């Protein structure tokens, strides 16, 4: 038996440590440990709820936007405040554009190097890669021989300098790297081109958000973008069509390159559909609200038990009691203590008192708490969302999933079923499917906004009013990494308690009150490891979740002690 500690896990957001016990080439036990903690929710206590989103957004700069969106939803939920349609559409466009950027960057920049051997790409035939590209992605305009050759020359020149920088520590030539050289070269070509397209997606977020990362156009009750087609310095038709141009450009890459790449790489690593399923109880939430109250959504979400799509139970509105009442967090194995009993707590009653110890295999070992849904561990993320949307009969999701499975089946030479998605490679494939769905939604939301403005509706903001006494609220969002929810208790217009239950908390959490493993840990068991010194296979499964540790580690301090604040005025 060998013990592996990988610290830090790189190509993720934040500070994550993974420990595994390996026996006979397989992982037998795993631990997931968050290694950084800031206490943003403690900082929020006593502040103006209208400011919460500016702070909460800084929980994460990769998941930028998402915490801001869910934070304003949370305060609006506590106030029963409706949001003008234009504001919903503008928020939805930022959600989708950011999600597209995030999914592109995850596949190419963060996870591809686990599967694609860049060094092998250097010796590939550019002609073979161009030919492959023409077959695999005939609609994509940047697979030409000159383009591929140019990128290969650039990479060769880079390696030739001997200064390999962040690429020096890669797993090139690892026995688990199995792609043919021309596939590696095509993927490496798209690796560099993806950087340009993710910028394209971000231009959309920047136009609406004023900046990105960390947008600055939100308000509790709407958005700060004024709409007035007869004035300057507002969201004019010129701005809207600047966005439209960027949306159209994104289509060529998402549908032309990302989906075929993921399908082909997945098919060539078909054995990985047999690894990494882990927890197959899935949770997602609906998103892209289409009305001012949050009762109709463009994208469905809900709970699926044991990977069985027929068990799908939808979550239907911002007032959904099924979701609200099911969430709890355990700290038995996390570096916190609950006063008055250590049993798992609902977020409204949650508290976090840091209690750091050594890394204890059977005790406390992480800054991440362990959330449960009706006392069960659940997996969240694009896979959970795609399965829910398929179960709910969402046509675009079914269509894009079918396309990915068709390409993969062709490349693999054998039919690949939907059930293959319950795996390490399935999580990556589902993310690409969701990316294509988001792009289609982005197009739709843009049209809805333009149509609504054309009707003469320029409303973007409803003023929030904070009543005396206590108001509780929650908000959720299907973020790029899965279910995100914020919970707030407002007292006399000030924040009394705030908590975020974050996608990577669901997935990266340690063992819970019942000592059940979290999704990362469960998915690592039985994962192959050829060489414990170079644990590439462990990284494949961990990266397939797209970890985000700044998000996962958060804090609620609900000790009900008033915090004495020294303010500038």
């Amino acid at each position, binding site marked *: 038996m060998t013990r592996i500690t990988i610290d*830090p896990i*790189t190509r993720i957001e934040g500070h994550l440590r993974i420990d595994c016990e390996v026996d006979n080439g397989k992982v037998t036990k795993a631990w997931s440990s968050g290694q950084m903690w800031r*206490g943003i929710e403690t900082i929020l206590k006593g502040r103006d709820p209208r400011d919460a989103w500016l702070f909460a957004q800084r929980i994460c700069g990769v998941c930028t936007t998402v915490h801001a969106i869910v934070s304003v939803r949370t305060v609006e939920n506590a106030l029963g405040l409706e949001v003008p349609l234009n504001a919903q559409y503008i928020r939805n466009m930022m959600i989708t554009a950011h999600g597209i950027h995030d999914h592109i960057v995850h596949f190419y920049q963060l996870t591809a190097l686990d599967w694609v051997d860049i060094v092998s790409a250097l010796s590939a035939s550019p002609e073979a890669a161009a030919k492959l590209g023409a077959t695999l992605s005939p609609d994509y305009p940047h697979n030409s021989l000159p383009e591929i050759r140019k990128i290969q020359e650039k990479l060769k020149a880079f390696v030739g300098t001997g200064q390999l920088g962040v690429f020096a520590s890669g797993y090139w030539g690892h026995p688990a790297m199995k792609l043919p050289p021309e596939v590696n070269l095509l993927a490496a070509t798209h690796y560099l081109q993806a*950087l340009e397209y993710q910028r394209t997606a971000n231009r959309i977020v920047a136009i609406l958000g004023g*900046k990105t990362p960390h947008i600055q156009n939100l308000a509790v009750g709407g958005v*700060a973008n004024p709409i007035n087609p007869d004035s300057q310095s507002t969201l004019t038709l010129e701005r809207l069509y600047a966005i439209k141009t960027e949306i159209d450009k994104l289509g060529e890459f998402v549908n032309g390159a990302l989906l075929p790449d993921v399908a082909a790489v997945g098919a060539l690593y078909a054995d990985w559909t047999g690894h990494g399923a882990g927890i197959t109880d899935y949770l997602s939430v609906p998103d892209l609200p289409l009305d001012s109250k949050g009762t109709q959504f463009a994208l469905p979400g809900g709970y699926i038990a044991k990977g069985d799509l027929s068990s799908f139970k939808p979550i239907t509105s911002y007032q959904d009691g099924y979701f609200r009442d099911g969430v709890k967090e355990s700290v038995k194995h996390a570096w916190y203590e609950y006063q008055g009993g250590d049993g798992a707590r609902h977020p409204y009653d949650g508290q976090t008192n840091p209690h750091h110890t050594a890394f204890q295999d059977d005790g406390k070992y992480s800054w991440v708490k362990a959330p449960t849904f009706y006392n069960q561990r659940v997996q969240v993320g694009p896979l959970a969302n795609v399965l829910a949307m398929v179960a709910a009969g969402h046509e675009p999701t079914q269509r894009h999933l079918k396309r990915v499975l068709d390409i993969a089946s062709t490349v693999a030479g054998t039919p690949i079923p939907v059930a293959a998605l319950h795996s390490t490679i399935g999580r990556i494939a589902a993310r690409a499917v969701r990316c294509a769905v988001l792009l289609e939604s982005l197009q739709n939301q843009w049209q809805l906004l333009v149509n609504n403005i054309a009707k003469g509706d320029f409303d973007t903001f409803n003023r929030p009013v904070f009543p005396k006494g206590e108001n509780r609220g929650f908000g959720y969002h299907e973020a790029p990494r899965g279910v995100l929810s914020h919970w707030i208790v407002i007292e006399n217009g000030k924040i009394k308690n705030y908590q975020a239950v974050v996608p990577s908390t669901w997935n990266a959490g340690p063992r819970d009150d019942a000592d059940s493993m979290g999704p990362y840990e469960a998915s690592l068991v039985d994962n192959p490891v050829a060489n414990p010194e170079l644990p590439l296979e462990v990284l494949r499964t961990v990266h397939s979740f797209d970890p985000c540790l700044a998000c996962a580690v958060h804090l609620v301090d609900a000790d009900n002690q008033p915090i004495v604040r020294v303010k500038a005025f």
Partner: protein
Amino acid sequence: MEQVEDHAIEVGTVQDLDGYQGALGGLTRREFLSYCTGVAATLGLSSMMGLRIAAAATAPARPPVIWLSAQECTGCTESLLRAYHPTLETLILDMISLDYHEALCAGAGHQAEAYRAQSMKANWGKYILVVDGSIPTKDGGIYCMVAGRPILETVREAAEGAAVIIGIGSCASWGGIPSSDPNPTGAQSVHAVLPGKTVVNIPGCPPNPYNFLSTVLYLLTFGKPPELDSKNRPRFAYGRLIHENCERRPHFDAGRFALEFGDFGHRQGFCLYKIGCKGPETYANCPAIGFGDVGEGNWPVGIGHPCFGCTEEGVGFTKPLHALSRVKTYAPPTAFPAVDATKGEGVTPAAVAIIAGAAGLAVGAGAMALRGMDGKDESAAGSSHDSER
């Protein structure tokens, strides 16, 4: 690989580092070469490439950069993904050698850490150190652990061998959001944990990517850091209040204000001061260069949201969003030449001085200094048109 290898490399070009303090981690030259060929072998490259790696490690063509991440959110790195001139790929493939960056390293765990240690040793005294995130100092620094040790220790160690230290983002520059009251983890800025060292601060949450990139370009072009203000911020980026270059400034001077999102003034593009804009007390170039390369006027105030002072200690994450800012400048329209000034004579400098002096008395600012725009002397006042340095 043939193209890579056909340039034979002289083993003699590997500089002798045996006498170099901290270099090679106590390895002899032979052991160091052996290490580098080992790296090459791990990468599936030839031993000749190992020699090239060794040569590059000791005489780098692109300056090595060690990027350490502390209590951060990766927003600063994400901001670089949005840059166009240069792009992130141009930066790391052609301009610098990014030898360590937790979010970007291909390898993980001890593979990444070993390469960082090797690069630092080979380039001791020569590398650029970049830190994002604040440094937790409470409880021995346990609130941010990387590779089994507090990031505080790693930052201090890396700073010893750095030629230049850059703190990117408000967290690294002045503590940022983790240091907000009640500062649960004892979060401090990078310069606060490196007494005696100069840290070039690039505040912002995240900063405009060009403020970081231009600092690096400045280093590469001039071989020295850019001119800094009293808070060690580059003047080219933080030398002016937002209020001084804001395109909505004329509305401020004319008294035209938005009072609420979506009201008449907001939909006319009026000044956002009364919604809580902190532009009048925040030093940054946001209105001058914008965000996202998507055209004119693309920055928070430009699209209709008040500045909340993310670059400025004591403003961002401290003052409420909808609280009025403390206006550090004032605009005395009476000091402007009258439109009907007598032809041929104009307004005399003496006349302006008298009027300006009166205005200065009126607002209680005794010193009408021409400084005060540089963040050095916050008590000094002056309007933008008379404060040209």
